[in-house]
């Protein structure tokens, strides 16, 4: 049987060809650009060695953006797991309005991030809906997107709200696969809801958790659309994610080489973090079982 399966390896050749042409080749070209001083559009440029790589370490904005990307990645991921899991538990058992709720909570996932960003920009304006609410609750109107801490928080919040639907669905699927005999047995033993949750739900949801956290983390670390739509990296470079900084360096500052070097660093970072995450997840899985 193993020999038959091995002969099926040809099946992934079409995929590999696509990757080779449209990913590997452009990526290598991008690496080459990282060693130039190209401005992104001129026919002429020259090679400048490691100058762009050095700038990665000296530029204050890179450090800011790196920190922001970590916040966007880990912050959103943690919140999405909490929200997604809570929603899954909420929607697991049938109650009036469950189907509607499941659809509505997933709906934002179907909205393009750019559009969602524009929608929230309108809401977060000085005269916008969110400030209206704040005023009704007795607070002062705030310029949400003009203060670094508030703006970064806003990005994390909107990103969480928009994509919690994905974790919710992953957890829902996981929960629906847990036979309720386990819960029944636990109930007969007198275990309360919290103990059932901790003892049965969480361990058996582990694979779902691993998938959800991996996908959410990769998405959050390379976040671009939402940040660009909400803040364009401002005010004054403070809310850039690495992805938006790359875009701005390339198209606005016309530093194609620097942007490319930044892109390689972002890719390497996500790769490293994901690898560490996978290792950690696999170890905990062994411990749990």
């Amino acid at each position: 049987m193993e020999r038959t399966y091995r002969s099926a390896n040809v099946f992934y050749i079409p995929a590999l060809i696509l990757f080779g042409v449209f990913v590997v080749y452009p990526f290598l070209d991008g690496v080459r650009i990282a060693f130039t001083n190209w401005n992104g559009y001129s026919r002429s440029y020259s090679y400048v060695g490691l100058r762009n790589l050095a700038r990665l370490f000296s530029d204050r904005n890179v450090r800011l953006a790196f920190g922001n990307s970590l916040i966007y990645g880990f912050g959103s991921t943690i919140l999405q797991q909490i929200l997604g899991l809570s929603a899954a538990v909420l929607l697991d058992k049938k109650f009036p309005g469950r189907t509607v709720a499941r659809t509505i909570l997933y709906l934002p996932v179907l909205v393009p991030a750019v559009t969602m960003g524009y929608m929230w920009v309108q809401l977060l304006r000085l005269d916008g809906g969110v400030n209206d609410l704040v005023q009704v609750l007795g607070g002062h109107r705030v310029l949400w997107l003009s203060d670094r801490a508030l703006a970064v928080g806003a990005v994390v919040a909107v990103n969480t709200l928009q994509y919690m639907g994905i974790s919710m669905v992953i957890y829902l699927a996981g929960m629906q696969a847990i036979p309720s005999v386990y819960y029944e047995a636990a109930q007969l033993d007198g275990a309360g809801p919290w103990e059932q949750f901790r003892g049965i739900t969480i361990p058996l949801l582990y694979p779902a958790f691993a998938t959800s956290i991996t996908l959410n983390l990769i998405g959050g670390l390379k976040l671009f659309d939402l940040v660009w739509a909400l803040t364009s990296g401002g005010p004054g470079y403070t809310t850039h994610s690495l992805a938006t900084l790359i875009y701005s360096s390339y198209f606005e500052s016309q530093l194609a080489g620097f942007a490319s070097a930044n892109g390689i660093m972002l890719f390497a970072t996500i790769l490293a973090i994901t690898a560490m995450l996978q290792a950690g997840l696999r170890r905990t899985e062994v411990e749990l079982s």
Partner: protein
Amino acid sequence: MKKSIWRTGFVVAMAATAVAASAAERRLTVALNVSQADATFTAVTAIAKDYVKQHPGVAIDVVALPVYEQTMKTKMAANDLPDLWSTHGWSVARYSEYLTPLNDQPWFGKINPTIKPVITDKAGKVFVLPFDVDVAGIAFNRAVLDKAGVDPFGIKTWDDFKAACAKVKASGKIPVHIGGSAKDSWTVGNFYDWVAPSFLITNEKKNFRTALKDGSFDWKSWGQVAKLLVEFRDAGYLNPDYTQGTWQDVGQKMAAGEAAFGFYGNNVIGEAKKFNPAGKYGFIPVPAAGKDDAPSLITGERVTLGVWKDSKHKADALEFLGFCARPENVNRIATINGNPTGLVGSAYRSEQGDLSPYFAKIGGVRGFPYFDREYLPNGMWDSMCNTGMGLLANTMNLDQAIAKMKEDYLSLRGQ
């Protein structure tokens, strides 16, 4: 099975594309940097339609490319450009490498002398047909100024201007609407573009024109320019949401009589008119930094078109450009924003409408090119916008803003 239906549909779609692509032979593409809802877009489309009627065998697609500058840069990188495109002020500094010189065109001699230096490169070549000339000062809502008791023509220096702002503020209106949101960060860059010349360029006796161009500029002098922005903010002369105002807000507030001044070209008046066509608007030259200097104007490209030097239909493109150069077409575009025509001669005339009294008063006022296009290396527009926004939001202090400008200036010059 479901899949075979998809597959058939896919093949049919591919075939349809192939058929459609082979339809018209000589097809010109004209790319504009405005949105489809813009009056300029409508005008150019109409001109193209007239041309096509008189020249069968040619088709013209007028396209509003979204994210125009990024798209154009990507296209340049691949040497895959439209036959004609608008250069929005960068015909020499950015696009000239890819444009056909137009000195041999029949209309070349008619180019408005005001704009000619701006669109000519060091070797004397011109790369675009200018439809109109951007003549910009500080625009305002006249009714707001009247109510506040401000005489716009009496404003000659920044001190005069600040006094006027104080009066407007006292009357309960916004003196200067600076926009300021991250989405429209260009509004902040614009403020700098307007203010910088008065401190650094316009004074014939003391200016930094050469220093900026040869790299010896001492960036400490930028402090005066940046300080004005901070002073306006601290004195309460800006719109209260000065870090989140959008371009839409500028037009709306000015139209509603809520805001007085705007540091934009007269297209802001066009915007305001959309919300309130009956409003009274005007403009004055940009004030001088001190009494030893005179107010000035900012002149530059507005609507232009150039021809790709590797275009497959260059002859047709040049002929279309010649058609655009006809008085009726030039006038049509220039009248949209009430700007002077880019070509001069007997039949060239633009309707300045209710801005005429203001145009009448600017005879003899000197015009200077856009600060960032002329005196700063390519790519510093972004630095101006971001440091300005940083100052407004207090995420940067003056020294940091100056340092960032200097850092970008040196690194971009080195390219």
